[in-house]
């Protein structure tokens, strides 16, 4: 995997949580506008934090596992993907659990 390892890990997170959308009727992917209203502020806030922390040298990315492609303010594309994928997994988990709880209640 090499330089795509970080992206592949995030891709695996997307694939593993995808069944929640259908089996447990999470309906997050099918409500994209609502999802974006939840995700865009996360990308902005955590993206700014990330750019500053990287500039200050608080953390960096192993060049063996990232593409090296960076968006203008200094945000690696993998980090942009991270700030979308991980909260998305959280939304899918939350909605799936709501469905499960409705099933257990029999409603």
């Amino acid at each position: 995997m090499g330089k795509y390892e970080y992206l592949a890990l995030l891709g695996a997170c997307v694939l593993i949580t995808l069944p929640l959308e259908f089996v447990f009727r999470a309906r997050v992917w099918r409500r994209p506008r609502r999802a974006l209203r939840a995700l865009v502020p996360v990308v902005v806030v955590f993206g700014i934090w990330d750019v500053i922390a990287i500039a200050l040298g608080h953390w960096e990315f192993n060049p063996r596992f990232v593409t090296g492609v960076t968006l203008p303010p200094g945000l690696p594309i993998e980090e942009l993907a991270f700030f979308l994928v991980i909260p998305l997994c959280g939304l899918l988990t939350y909605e799936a659990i709501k469905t499960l709880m409705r099933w257990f209640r029999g409603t």
Partner: protein
Amino acid sequence: MPAYPVFSVLAALAVIALELLWLRTGIFRRSAYWIAMVVVFAFMIPVDGWMSKVPDPIVIYDPSVLSGLRFPIDIPTEEFVYAFAMVTLALVLWERAGPRGESSRPRVRA
């Protein structure tokens, strides 16, 4: 004080304040939220464990910004606070963006 745990705690407190003082979706009173957080943390262990595995991590931290606690595996423990802030922010905004009345019990006005 090391920067990463300090800012993670501040981010978590800011998200809690956002919910309790402003958006008031009532998500902290929902058991689905707390169960979801447990599930997210459980899945975080293999994913973040892979990202922070010593000696071949994807993310390399300056040791001086970390608390020094690494548990479980090689995960800097403050990552769980960071993850709480990030995922809770998304869930609160998701509830807020939903149709009114569906997101939680009716809000009680003081």
